[in-house]
């Protein structure tokens, strides 16, 4: 069995470096039946990357702090990847905490995103 932590790590590196460089390039990771909950709002399929592209900042920098990976179904290949980190937008000096959970589903030699749940973490 492939090392799921290594798969999760390389997905996470790819995802956020692509996000920070050009959000439009995330489109191939999502299929028409993929789901995203973004701050409690639901999006599906092509609407997901459209939403990401419409976010009102010019520049963003994600800094990943933790990555956890687990098989979401022991009989098959889907992976649950949970990320916590910080992000900085535009000229902001204070990073915001975020958490994001993905379910990755294998397809051929690669994976696509079936589930994506994003939240900013406030609370103090």
């Amino acid at each position, binding site marked *: 069995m492939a090392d799921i932590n290594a798969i999760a790590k390389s997905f996470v590196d790819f995802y956020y470096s692509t996000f920070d460089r050009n959000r439009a390039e995330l489109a191939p990771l999502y299929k028409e039946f993929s*789901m995203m*909950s973004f701050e*409690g709002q*639901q999006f*599906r399929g092509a609407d997901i990357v459209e939403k990401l592209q419409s976010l009102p900042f010019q520049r963003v920098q994600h800094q990943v*702090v*933790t990555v*956890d990976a*687990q098989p*979401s*179904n*022991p009989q098959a290949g*889907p992976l*649950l990847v*949970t990320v*916590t980190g910080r992000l900085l937008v535009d000229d902001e000096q204070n990073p915001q*905490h975020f*958490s994001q*959970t993905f*379910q990755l*589903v294998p397809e051929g030699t690669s994976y696509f995103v*079936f*589930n994506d*749940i994003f*939240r900013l*973490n*406030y*609370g*103090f």
Partner: protein
Amino acid sequence: MNTQLLDVSSRAADTFVPAFYSMFDRQRHALANLYGETSVLVWNGNTTQGAAAIARSYLDFPISDHEVLSYDCQPLTESSDILVTISGNVRYGDEQRRKLFHQSFVLRQRPESKGNYFIVTDTFRFV
């Protein structure tokens, strides 16, 4: 979107989320009932497997007070499994400071009783 599946998963999450944290804070010994033999907990990077071991590790925590700030749920692939993610804060014992946490669960229907879920995976991190 399969709205029926979404309804089922959001109803399950609406029931599960308050029940889990109220059990954790007030009836922690009962948590064992929510896990199965193959369940996996990853708590801040440390893995524990099986209902008995997970419940034992939770019993070692000091008195807790969880406050849920937001939760989300989605149906998972090709099954009736449900993904539930929670953001919140928690105070342990008489600590003054509340810690921010993020927790993700995969819930699965018990084969013997439909509509009744157990925890397949539980991933917890302080953020």
